[in-house]
């Protein structure tokens, strides 16, 4: 009977372990895939939609730069032109037009499955934000959909990637595939799409790690859907109580309480990385190594599967009561890895300490004045 039980247990474990998540999607064509024949292409940006000095031009540059940080080294060079764009003219172009979806990419390929043109049209009827300030972004209580994330999604199509439903991915729902630390929310290409770029175009030598407070939650048709990572009770795995502040969940915690901090860790580069992750508590939403270190964990990340996981930390007992704090993590906290981007190495989850009777305990702080040694005048004048 024991053997029988053991066999079922193994089967049970395998049922979980052999589960797969789908990653990037491409279009198979003949013996290969639909893709460009070389890694460097020109993207013509219409100055009528992206005039010099406009925030839309800045957002375009941001999005193309983020695409160019893919682990394959695929690069789009922007050329500004006042020639009116059109589909089918042999040039890859980007412009803004009144179309029904927020963004559309029309891509062309020849009989050899090589792409010859990719045109991106962004919709003019969407309320966009081109700002990286999180308060302007609808994920954080602002009014606008981030232009950069949608454009980056379309740029993913323009290099040969399809929609992706089964992993946290820019090729799914784009607006909440975003990195935030402090007051800045930036679009980024992400691990899974970057992995797809390596499949299509081969690896470069780039390395990049990141932490975000977003994760895969499901799918809406061909698009992955994303939600915020959470703070959980370690014994029950149930999400802790929270209130909403600017669309962000601010968790209610007790001083001294152990909580499970859920975050998403990504390896956007080419090589397996084994790095320290430091967990911190901060008095603001900027997580850095200057904050109070609570715990350290070693994490191994391969560049092919977005890793959402949680880690137990204890809220310090000396925090002030009824006060806002931010729990967060910094990956590669010693800065030992040279990366494409360092700004994406930290993110946060807001918390607020509860009031309870322990808050009434008064701990007197006695200021200590350092003793001044008595010195002779001959020494004092040295």
């Amino acid at each position, binding site marked *: 009977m024991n053997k029988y039980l053991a066999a079922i247990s193994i089967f049970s474990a395998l049922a979980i372990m052999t589960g797969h998540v789908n*990653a990037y999607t491409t279009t198979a064509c003949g013996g290969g895939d639909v893709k460009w024949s070389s890694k460097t292409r020109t993207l013509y940006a219409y100055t009528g*939609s992206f005039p010099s000095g406009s925030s839309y031009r800045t957002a375009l540059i941001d999005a193309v730069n983020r695409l160019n940080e893919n682990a394959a080294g695929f690069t789009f060079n922007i050329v500004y032109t006042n020639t009116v764009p059109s589909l089918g003219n042999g040039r890859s172009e980007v412009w803004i037009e009144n179309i029904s979806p927020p963004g559309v990419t029309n891509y*062309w390929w020849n009989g050899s499955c090589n792409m010859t043109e990719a045109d991106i049209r962004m919709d003019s009827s969407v309320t966009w934000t081109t700002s990286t300030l999180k308060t302007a972004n609808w994920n954080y209580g602002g009014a606008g959909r981030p232009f950069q994330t949608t454009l980056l999604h379309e740029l993913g199509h323009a290099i040969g990637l399809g929609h992706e439903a*089964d992993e946290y991915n820019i090729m799914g729902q784009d607006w909440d595939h975003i990195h935030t630390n402090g007051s800045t929310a930036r679009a980024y290409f992400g691990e899974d799409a970057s992995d797809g770029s390596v499949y299509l175009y081969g690896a470069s030598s780039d390395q990049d790690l990141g932490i975000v407070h977003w994760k895969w939650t499901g799918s809406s048709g061909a698009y992955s859907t994303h939600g915020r990572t959470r703070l959980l009770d370690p014994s029950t795995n149930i999400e802790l109580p929270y209130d909403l502040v600017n669309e962000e969940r601010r968790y209610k915690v007790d001083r001294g309480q152990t909580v499970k901090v859920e975050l998403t860790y990504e390896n956007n580069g080419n090589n397996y990385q084994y790095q320290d992750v430091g967990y911190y508590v901060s008095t603001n939403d900027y997580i850095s190594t200057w*904050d109070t270190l609570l715990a350290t964990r070693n994490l191994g990340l391969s560049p092919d*599967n977005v890793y959402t996981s949680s880690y137990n930390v204890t809220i310090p007992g000396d925090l002030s009561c009824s006060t806002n704090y931010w729990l967060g993590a*910094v990956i590669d906290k010693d800065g030992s890895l040279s990366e494409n981007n360092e*700004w994406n*190495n*930290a993110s946060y989850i807001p918390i607020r300490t509860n009031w309870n009777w322990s808050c009434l305990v008064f701990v007197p702080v006695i200021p200590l004045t350092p003793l001044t040694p008595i010195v002779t005048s001959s020494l004092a004048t040295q």
Partner: protein
Amino acid sequence: MKKKLFLVMAGTLLALQAHAYQFSGKYDIGKMSEEANLVFRGTVIAVDYRSSRAKGQQRPLPHTFVTFQVEDVLHGDLKSNQFTLRFLGGKTKKGEIMMTSAQPKFDVGDQDLVFVKGNGISECPLVGCSQGRFRILNGLLYNEDGQQIVQDEKGAIKSGKTEALEALNSFHIGKQRFSRLHHKERSKDGNGYEIRRDDLVGAYHLDEGSFTGLVRSNITKALQKAPQSMREVARSVDKNRPFSAVQSKPVALPEPEADFDPAVEMSEEELNEVKAMEKSGGNPVLK
């Protein structure tokens, strides 16, 4: 011992059930019915490629004409039992192919239930583009992306598990065969299966009969709610008649409203931290 065995088996079943459905995309069939000019079930009998006429600066663009043998009209008026839809994207005479990111791909013999809107005008004449196409394979319903169409315990229609079926994931353009490649990686999620969704345990894969019934009932409700909204007649297009594509009309957008950065009171220590991070380009590793 029996109790332990039961618990392990129950755990196994729950794990398998939870893995069976990882999705949450909801289809609002009522709203889709309101938006559609025509809803029918049919079989694709022809896929043809034609290019539009050059117009102004707009060069000829390849289009795909998909002709259905209509088997059941759920909503709308049809004078013929054949109906042709026109999509932007297809094949040129030189053999070049142009596709649109969300465009559905049809093969002769495909069985579908489609919600038609703006045929001959729109680049993609289906409600929500590929969302307005439901594929029928072996009597079961799938979406354009090869995901099962399921109904959960509360009655919601959702997209479900992606099926690795050849018929769902491959398509032809002319004689050339293409397929959607879902590159699979083994999940390495830290806390067992954190990413699994349990909200659809108990959801079941819809068959053609059940789904058609649901659509009919939603159309009846939509007609009662807004009888005027569904009167527009959908017209089949003639693949042999010359046509023009809509010319691009690029625009400049006004600058978005000025950023609002709420003033946050910070201590000197915090200000120093923010300044240090700004100085290092946002690097959180501060020396």
